[in-house]
């Protein structure tokens, strides 16, 4: 069918703006674009194998993310407007617990390209990049300074939140794909960065941020002052940690909570956490704080460290009241009341106020870790790419993984001499354009809580605290999903339901190959679709356009067989025999 420009333009509007394929809020917010709704409904239907397969299409870390992902998706979950967001993270863990099986892993690879890529750092960002690049047929070698893989998943996040066997299990896919991992190999010491740049076609720098930040206050050099990142690493490695019984942790983020809870497990008797922020400004997630408080950790919000006291060893620490953390412009600019002072007795002070990247290994090079391109992660040196925590901003694990995928796409294109910038708008998190309204009849369903081991049983060990969902819990939770999508028109129209997956796809088909006239001659012209469409598309007018064109191309007649009779009805309906035209008459009426 020959489409006129006007008809085409109006149709293109639907093709461009129809929301049928717009992902739900959760998925749009996921930096890895995981089909949340998809796996939740599969879990609801008891299809656990399919659920884990779907998750694995987007991540090799379902068990890791199912335990420690900071789940930004849940902040956007539509259900949150009703009572509480879906437990998206915990359902992911459930799928992994129930059905993940290495025998099902997709270990296929594209044909060898002969290209070699080096990845610095076996943290989540490096691992994800290595995975994708290896699948693309390149040969990847990972260089890792520490004796084990995982980066901060293992050496930051404590094992009671993420058991090490889960990390090893999920990392094993790299081995299976043929990625070479060189442990205990520090770039800058055991092997030079310049060498990697030389020997490999491309390098991905994903060295994380491991250098703990200190504040230069009096007493910071005393015995018993520790750095959070080192403390956690030592604990993870099983090294002896020199720690007393009365601990003060400085910092209010998630790392501070992990430090405090680790200290508690290692035998500390009194643990105070002090931070500048108070109320909902405290950077740690509310659930991290709750879990810490359950273990007896004492929060001291609104206090800034003034001085660490003691002769050679720490004996205590004093604080000044913090009255402002950020100024009016939103910049970090703390202000204190120097008169309001508080002291805490302590034998150990642990700083957990942030980590920086150790970038000495690139110092001699033309690479500025925090000045790489945002869209491609490419550095000024063409074949060097940088992502994850070492790029300068502390990330969530899932964001570091998303960087890994982004870097892999860039490197793959770079190795194939393709455009690095094309078509990259929707990588990572973005805002869903859906305009879903919650059905007012939707019943309230409480979020299913995760069961945990008793507090007493957590002491002196690093056993996993969260127990995971059982089938009933998972099903109950999955049932809460509102299955956010548009397709409002299809829910309200049998014709659309019968003939298309979405108006967008249907009109695309009209353009590409044409459709059976029966489709546009099956529209009731009732406007029901327009009524429910957030874009108020007049689909009936689009179908009428097609009818008109069809008639034009068919000698003025409808191409539909069943319409032949109408022609005769019309002739009769206009014939003298069946028509009349009567002027008014005021002849008296017999009946009223």
């Amino acid at each position: 069918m020959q489409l006129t420009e006007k008809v085409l333009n109006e149709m293109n509007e639907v093709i461009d703006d129809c929301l049928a394929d717009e992902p739900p809020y959760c998925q749009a917010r996921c930096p890895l674009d995981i089909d949340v709704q998809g796996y939740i409904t599969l879990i609801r239907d008891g299809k656990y194998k399919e659920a884990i397969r779907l998750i694995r299409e987007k991540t090799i870390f379902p068990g890791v993310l199912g335990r420690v992902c900071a789940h930004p998706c849940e902040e956007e979950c539509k259900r949150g407007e009703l009572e509480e967001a879906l437990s998206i993270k915990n359902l992911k863990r459930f799928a992994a617990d129930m059905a993940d099986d290495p025998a099902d892993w997709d270990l296929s690879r594209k044909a060898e390209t002969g290209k070699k890529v080096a990845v610095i750092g076996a943290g989540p960002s490096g691992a994800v990049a290595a995975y994708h690049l290896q699948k693309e047929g390149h040969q990847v070698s990972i260089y890792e300074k520490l004796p084990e893989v995982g980066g901060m998943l293992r050496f930051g996040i404590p094992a009671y939140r993420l058991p090490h066997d889960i990390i090893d299990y999920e990392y094993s896919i790299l081995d299976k794909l043929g990625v070479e991992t060189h442990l205990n190999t520090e770039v800058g010491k055991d092997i030079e960065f310049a060498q990697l740049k030389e020997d490999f076609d491309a390098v991905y720098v994903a060295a994380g941020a491991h250098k703990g930040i200190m504040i230069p206050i009096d007493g910071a050099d005393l015995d018993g002052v520790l750095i959070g990142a080192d403390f956690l690493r030592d604990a993870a490695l099983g090294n002896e940690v020199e720690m007393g019984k009365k601990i003060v942790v400085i910092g209010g983020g998630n790392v501070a909570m992990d430090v405090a809870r680790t200290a508690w497990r290692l035998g500390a008797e009194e643990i105070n956490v002090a931070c500048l922020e108070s109320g909902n400004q405290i950077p740690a997630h509310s659930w991290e704080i709750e879990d810490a408080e359950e273990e007896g950790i004492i929060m001291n919000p609104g206090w800034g460290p003034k001085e660490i006291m003691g002769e050679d060893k720490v004996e205590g620490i004093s604080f000044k009241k913090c009255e402002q953390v950020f100024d009016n412009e939103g910049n970090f600019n703390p202000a204190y009341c120097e008169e309001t002072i508080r002291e805490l007795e302590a034998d150990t002070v642990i700083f957990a106020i942030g980590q920086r990247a150790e970038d000495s290994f690139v110092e001699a090079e033309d690479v500025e870790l925090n000045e790489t391109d945002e869209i491609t992660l490419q550095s000024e040196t063409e074949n060097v790419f940088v992502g994850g925590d070492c790029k300068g901003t502390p990330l969530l694990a899932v964001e570091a993984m998303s960087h890994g995928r982004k870097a892999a796409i860039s490197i793959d294109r770079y190795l194939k001499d393709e455009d690095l910038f094309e078509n990259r708008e929707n990588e990572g998190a973005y805002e869903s354009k859906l305009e879903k309204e919650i059905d007012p009849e939707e019943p309230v369903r409480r979020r299913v809580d995760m069961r945990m081991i008793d507090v007493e049983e957590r002491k002196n060990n690093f056993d996993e605290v969260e127990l995971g969902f059982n089938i009933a819990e998972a099903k109950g939770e999955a049932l809460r999903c509102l299955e956010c999508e548009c397709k409002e028109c299809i829910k309200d129209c049998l014709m659309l339901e019968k003939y298309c997956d979405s108006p967008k796809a249907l009109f695309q088909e009209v353009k590409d190959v044409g459709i059976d006239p029966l489709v546009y001659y099956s529209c009731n012209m009732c406007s029901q679709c327009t009524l429910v469409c957030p874009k108020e598309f007049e689909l009936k007018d689009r179908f009428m356009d097609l009818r008109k064109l069809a008639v034009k191309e068919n000698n003025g007649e409808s191409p539909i067989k069943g319409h032949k009779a109408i022609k005769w009805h019309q002739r009769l309906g206009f014939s003298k025999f069946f028509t009349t035209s009567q002027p008014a008459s005021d002849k008296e009426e017999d009946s009223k």
Partner: protein
Amino acid sequence: MKAKTKTKRVFIPGCSLSSYNPELVEKTIKYLKNKLPGTGAILKCCGKPTKALGQYDEFKERYAGLQKEIDALGADEIIVACQSCYLTMSASSPEQNVRSLWALMPEIGMPEGTVGKAKDSDITFGVHDSCSTRDRDDIHEGIRWIIEQLGYNTEEPPHTKGDTRCCGFGGMVVPANPDLAQQIMEKRTDEFETDYLVTYCAACRASMYKGGKKAVHILDLIFGDVWTSESDFPDLEGSVASWVNRYKTKKKIQEVLS
């Protein structure tokens, strides 16, 4: 003897109503004549079916034929009893004021002897609105006013008035895709608890009947006997019967307005 009254307005009953029941057309004209002297009538198709098929050139020709008749009578107002006619004529006869009988009745009052006649009926009628005039609140309100005046109980389906669902007949889908149309009809009738439906379009009535309900036209309620669970409800008129009815309608119109 033909009286010399000026034809101020013209009642156009439309094809589907005329094919359905000539007596109802007759009684409506008598009623209008009584309440609004100066009302003529035209029985002629407006050509909408051609428009629905996409035959716009043919439609223009057809409608011009009707317009000629309206102009010849000198009417400056058109009264319609069909929502499809309402839309078509509103759009195509800019010189005439097009009114729906259902919005007009509350203004001019019920026919004599009809108010309260059905207050003892044991039937609850579900009201099915036509989708073509979904944005005409005055029509929705008029219909409810009429039924209330008569005294019947009513049921509103989940989708009603501005949000009504198509009966399945619209867009000439029945001849094109009868199976789909049947499903749409059933989807619509499924929305009602009651077995008895009232429509204000003869085509909608036929659809509701095919959807498995006992269905009447609102003029059946106004001019017919009081409907109860004992009544015989109308079924579908065949094609031949339809044309016979149309012919009868023509004769009745000529009789009443002679």
